[in-house]
């Protein structure tokens, strides 16, 4: 070759790279917005809308404006509406198919906001039935923490029901047997037989006529005695069977309390489901509903999050789609969880007022980070309180020694007119009062 290098080619290459970058910058935001709406709608099974998406490359981050997730049961309402979400992503982790968000800001989070257009995906479903009585509007935490007895009182326990059923059944059996025993031949009957035998013996002494008449009586007596004995035998047999059945029932019922204990442990453990149950129990229906909404969102995301990791063995067993191949993942020293938000600054608006706070180390794999999830939210100048602060820790670093704690500090609870004594001679009425609460809940080993 006369000249090995074609310098204008380098210019063409640079021009091509520049053009590609220009086109990428021009269209990437719309592409990201469309993808989030499509994937989000697919995951949430309800329309997800986004006003705008802004992707930055240096540093790698994303800003989403007005994210609306339709309530799938009520298409004219947004289950969640978020004013703005902004976060930075670790590019290295992203290549490892892991979502590692260094800092996230969530502003203007609101629940159950009305929509101007229906957010139904498929043919519209009938709107959700009217809200349950007593759950209208926001009610702040009752602050009267129920103890285990209260939880047990509110729970319908299968074991208690079974014991009650069994007691009723035993009572019915007892009544049935009392009636049956009453119907069985008793002492009187046998005394009567004795009398009749005696008469027959006397008749024998009365000559041939008396003897012949007595024969018929003997046969009849024998039949009656035989029938009575058969009746007693049958009753004995049935009693044995009934007793055996009752014994079995008692034995099976004795195992049910443990099932109840296990069920309650699961229900009120600090799992996402348990959390919503505790919230409903401690903080009234509305907050329970919110937690349930969050839990539903988590359940929706869970299968997708589970797909984020695939090891070599999985990949080898997978048949690749044409022209795509299979990505094989290796275990590197820098082991990050599949999903990690190091810091999330969250602000949300409730009817009672505005709250804001920080959540740190949000991940489902704490053993990998070695750090517990911590959160702190506070609201000032609220409807019925001067301030509320919630501090919490969810520690699952060692799953065998889980330790979770929540501390609620409420200050300046305004208590209105309250009659303390109805006595006409000495009436006492409190016109105004303020109360401070300091509550702490701890859970150990789930």
């Amino acid at each position: 070759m006369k000249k090995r290098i074609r310098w204008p080619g380098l210019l063409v290459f640079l021009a091509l790279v520049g053009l590609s970058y220009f086109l990428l910058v021009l269209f990437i935001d719309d592409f990201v917005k469309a993808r989030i709406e499509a994937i989000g709608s697919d995951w949430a099974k309800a329309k997800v809308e986004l006003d705008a998406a802004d992707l930055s490359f240096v540093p790698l981050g994303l800003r989403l404006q007005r994210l609306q997730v339709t309530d799938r049961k009520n298409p004219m309402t947004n289950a969640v509406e978020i004013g703005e979400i902004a976060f930075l992503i670790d590019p290295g982790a992203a290549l490892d198919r892991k979502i590692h968000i260094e800092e996230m800001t969530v502003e203007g989070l609101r629940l159950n906001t009305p929509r101007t257009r229906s957010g139904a995906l498929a043919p519209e479903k009938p709107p959700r039935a009217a809200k349950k009585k007593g759950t209208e509007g926001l009610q702040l935490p009752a602050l009267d923490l129920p103890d285990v007895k209260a939880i047990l009182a509110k729970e319908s326990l299968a074991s208690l029901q079974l014991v009650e059923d069994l007691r009723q059944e035993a009572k019915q059996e007892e009544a049935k047997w009392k009636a049956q025993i009453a119907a069985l031949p008793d002492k009187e009957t046998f005394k009567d037989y004795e009398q009749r035998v005696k008469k027959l013996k006397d008749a024998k002494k009365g000559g041939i006529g008396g003897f012949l008449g007595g024969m018929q009586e003997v046969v009849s007596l024998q039949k009656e005695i035989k029938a009575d004995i058969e009746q007693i035998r049958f009753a004995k047999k049935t009693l044995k069977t009934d007793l055996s059945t009752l014994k079995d029932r008692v034995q099976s019922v004795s195992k049910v309390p443990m099932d109840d204990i296990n069920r309650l442990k699961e229900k009120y453990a600090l799992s996402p489901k348990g959390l919503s149950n505790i919230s409903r129990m401690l903080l009234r229906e509305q907050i329970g509903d919110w937690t349930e909404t969050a839990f539903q969102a988590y359940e929706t995301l869970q299968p997708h999050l589970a797909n984020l990791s695939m090891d070599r063995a999985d990949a080898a067993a997978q048949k690749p789609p044409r022209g795509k191949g299979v990505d094989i993942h290796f275990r590197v020293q820098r082991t990050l969880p599949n999903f990690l938000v190091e810091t999330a600054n969250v602000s949300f608006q409730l009817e009672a007022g505005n709250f804001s706070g920080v959540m740190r180390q949000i991940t489902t794999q704490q053993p990998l980070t070695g750090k517990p999830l911590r959160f702190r939210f506070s609201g000032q100048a609220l409807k019925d309180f001067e301030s509320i602060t919630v501090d919490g820790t969810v520690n699952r670093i060692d799953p065998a020694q889980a330790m979770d704690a929540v501390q609620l500090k409420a200050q300046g609870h305004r208590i209105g007119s309250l009659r303390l004594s109805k006595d006409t001679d000495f009436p006492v009425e409190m016109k105004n009062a303020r109360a401070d609460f300091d509550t702490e809940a701890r859970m150990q080993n789930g």
Partner: protein
Amino acid sequence: MLKTIAKFLKILNSETEPAQISLAFCFAMVAGLSPLLSLHNVFVLLLVLVLRVNLSAFLLAFVGFSGIATLLDPVFHQIGLGLLTAEALKGLWTGLYDITFWRIARFNNTLVMGSLASALVLFPPLFLLSNRLIRQYRARFLKWVQKSKLMQALRATKLYEAYETLSQLKGDGG
């Protein structure tokens, strides 16, 4: 089809050095056999544009190798899978996996690995073989082809004329 044959014959019959055409075939093989949107293909594009390889030969061969790649997909997947799961290479792959550049290069994809490894292995033999074949063609068959009825017919077409004019304007580079 005629256009393709015309282009191909034009390339072979031109005074372009055999190495320029052979190198174009080899680069086209790398880019054509592996998934188009791979990082190494950006590097191939840079080399094709900067090194004096025959661009027409590259484009023509690229189309041909892309067609072959579709048929060989399962083979490349198996080769890639074999390489990426080989115990002896586990340390190497794990080391590369920890480096962002290699992750962007998608070396851990079975198809990328299989096709790229195959193309790189075939690169030197293809270069030498096509060099030799082009030389042999020019020495033994060129005159015969120039005189053939097919070539006469092709030369008579307006397309060929236009192509020739354009080539003369561009020079040897293709």
